[in-house]
């Protein structure tokens, strides 16, 4: 039990439960099956978007192009099915490959040039978005196959649980295993902690960086596909608004932007917090633009808390060592 308190995500879990209960106490409609359904649907792809950013934060970089990759994949996915009449599984496969290729480009250029990922992904953001707009000329694809639409609308039996959330939950679990129980995952965190140490140990920087970006591209692609399933159409502006939430959840989950410290469970809870409170703002009929302010404030508060926590640990260490 004592170790439970020490975990980063424990405090967040309490925040999730308490805020959920508090909102439900004031507005019982919050727990209505429709509302829970909506909540879980937005959680589903937000989770993947957050993980796509989280894995890049883990290696101490950032990926501004998560949304652009998601958008490009979304229109590729729907375009492949509508224009080229390609079957759904093949379209999914090709789309994922496109996402991973985008990620690979990000990783490859960053690793080989040594330029900050910020500026590289800013450039590729416009490149991917440019291709997206160039192909679609800003027109959405409407003719999505019924199977895809059905998948997007399906629920698990008679529960309000959307089928859409199953894949994200599986992916979250796999990501947890990856970050905590596989050599590559640990090497990524080691690299994020200290590039220099990692290289001295013999961890290959370019392998770590490229792998992380490919995974990020894969996740962004998955999110893009899920959003198409959800919206039942592929619009070119999918992904435009992902930047902020993609950072919000990991940062609320205690991730340090300098790298080396991310937590999959805490990130997932970060997503839940963002989703619950955004949903609450809707229920309380608060100006939807307030969500934006709220997200910004949450990010600021979260980095401050993380900062303070690091600072306190450092101080404790100093006292401990001087004795």
């Amino acid at each position, binding site marked *: 039990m004592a170790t439970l308190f020490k975990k980063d995500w424990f405090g967040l879990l309490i925040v999730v439960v308490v805020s959920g209960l508090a909102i439900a106490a004031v507005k019982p409609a919050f727990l209505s099956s429709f509302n829970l359904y909506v909540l879980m649907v937005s959680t589903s792809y937000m989770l993947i978007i957050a993980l796509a950013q989280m894995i890049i934060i883990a290696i101490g970089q950032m990926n501004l192009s998560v949304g652009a990759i998601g958008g490009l994949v979304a229109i590729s996915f729907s375009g492949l099915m509508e224009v080229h009449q390609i079957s759904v599984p093949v379209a999914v496969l090709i789309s994922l490959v496109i996402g991973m290729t985008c990620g690979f480009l990000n990783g490859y250029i960053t690793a080989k040039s040594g330029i900050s990922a910020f500026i590289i992904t800013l450039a590729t953001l416009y490149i991917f978005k440019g291709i997206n707009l160039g192909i679609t000329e800003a027109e959405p694809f409407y003719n999505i196959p019924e199977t895809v639409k059905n998948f997007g609308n399906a629920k698990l039996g008679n529960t309000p649980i959307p089928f859409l959330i199953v894949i994200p939950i599986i992916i979250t679990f796999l990501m947890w*295993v990856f970050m905590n129980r596989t050599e590559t995952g*640990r090497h990524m965190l080691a690299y994020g902690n200290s590039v220099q140490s990692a290289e*001295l140990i013999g961890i290959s920087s370019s392998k770590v960086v490229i792998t992380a970006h490919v995974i990020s591209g894969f996740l962004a692609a998955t999110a893009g596909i899920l959003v198409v399933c959800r919206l039942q159409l592929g619009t070119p502006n999918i992904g435009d608004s992902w930047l902020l939430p993609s950072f919000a959840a990991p940062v609320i989950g205690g991730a340090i932007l300098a790298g080396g410290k991310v937590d999959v469970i805490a990130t997932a809870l970060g997503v839940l917090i963002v989703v619950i409170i955004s949903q609450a703002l809707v229920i309380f009929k608060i100006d939807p633009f307030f969500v934006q302010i709220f997200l910004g404030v949450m990010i600021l508060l979260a980095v401050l808390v993380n900062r303070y926590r690091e600072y306190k640990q450092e101080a404790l260490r100093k006292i401990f060592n001087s004795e």
Partner: protein
Amino acid sequence: MNEFCLEIRSANKSFPGVKALDQASFRLRKGSIHALLGENGAGKSTLIKIITGVHKQDSGKLFINGKEETLNNPNDATKFGISVVHQERNLIRRFSVGENLMLNNLPKTPLGLIDYDEITIKSKKWLEMMDLDIDPKTVVSELTVAKMQLCEIAKALSLKAKILLLDEPTSSLSPQESENLFTLLKKIVRDEGVSIVFVSHKLEEVFNICDDVTVLRDGENACTSEDIKNLDRQKLVRLMIGRDEQIVKSARKIKNAKDTILALRNVKTELGHRNIDLELNRSEIIGLYGLVGAGRTELMKCLIGQDKITDGDVIVNGKKVTINSPKTALEKFKIGYISEDRKKEGLILIHNVLDNTSITVWSQIRKAFGFVSDGMIANKVDSYIRQLEVKTPSNYQLISNLSGGNQQKISVAKWLAAGTDILIIDEPTVGIDIKTKAYLHELIIKLADNGTSIILISSDMPEMISLADKILVMKDFQMSGIVENDHDYDAVSSKIMEFIHT
């Protein structure tokens, strides 16, 4: 007949414009501790990098266990059982000790996932072998520097290292911790058949534990794998610097007249200093001596307002003052601080000589609307650049293109230009060639003679004893004693050591 586990024959290595190694040779006997010595820039680090596969020699041969080998990258070196132990840098601070030890070769379950129980069991074995009482689950960042270093050695051993390179391993250890380290090193050499290359500046340590010595000077061998029994301290120093060790005998007379310019009374700081008293007279050089981690640099940074003084009085020229930033220290009280880390805290490497020298005087020389031209700057600082004989093709040369000695001169020049009354000089000659070092010593004395009051931080005992008028010894963020310096090396140094070890 001993067999060599590592041998380098006539290695040459050039970098554009510099010959780092010139026919350098090196032989490591199996099961020995071998000192690799030389001044900064003598080629030690290049040699180490060749041994560890970071660089490849231009010509010359490398033998491991008598067989010629090529090392193309650090991984190759690891395969041959060559490991370097750096100062705490090799560890991932947020990972546990166990995971750090096993990181190159994480044990896995049949599913291919990491087996943490196995990590604990396996790493425990290595820690026990080194008599280290650490729980493998402890997070590295919670360890002391000394323990981190021992963990690094444990890690190297776990990688089946047969040749261990220790680069300045004791620079941040206390004497007790160093002693423990040496016992351990001797043990692993004896029990595990490991051979050790030991790089250190502390000759006492070399004589204490090493069997053989190789000295490099300007990239060449001053001696190759000599038995240490054939050498003594003086011979060794001569090999390293090419002549006898010189201790500048300062001819300074300590003024009797008390003219206190700076005093600290019972000062406490947010960094943990307690009961600090200090008195600095005009034209006086006081030395702050202590081990790494004694809090000397930190105290000075509190004094100039970088960190906070929480209690006690700071008195400048008889008046109680508060200094809340280096800016105030400079502009109001004419106190300057020359950092020990000139690349990080002293100079702006991507800027030129003129900008670096004048950084402290821009506010002084500006005209209306803050106008400051290069001409005005040159007027102000040129004389100092010339006075210090800075070797630079022009005032517009980037600082990063100057040699270490000339860089240090620039970091001194900017404070001379600022016209400080009190100058804090932190480790002025670390990594500086002998000639510039002597020059800087003379300069410090001259400055004091001309009325500047100086606080000198140095870990170089001869330097301290030749320059300071009075030596304050610090320990654990407190003052542990004052030694009046009569420049008698043996007497003064033993007094200092007494204060350090009580």
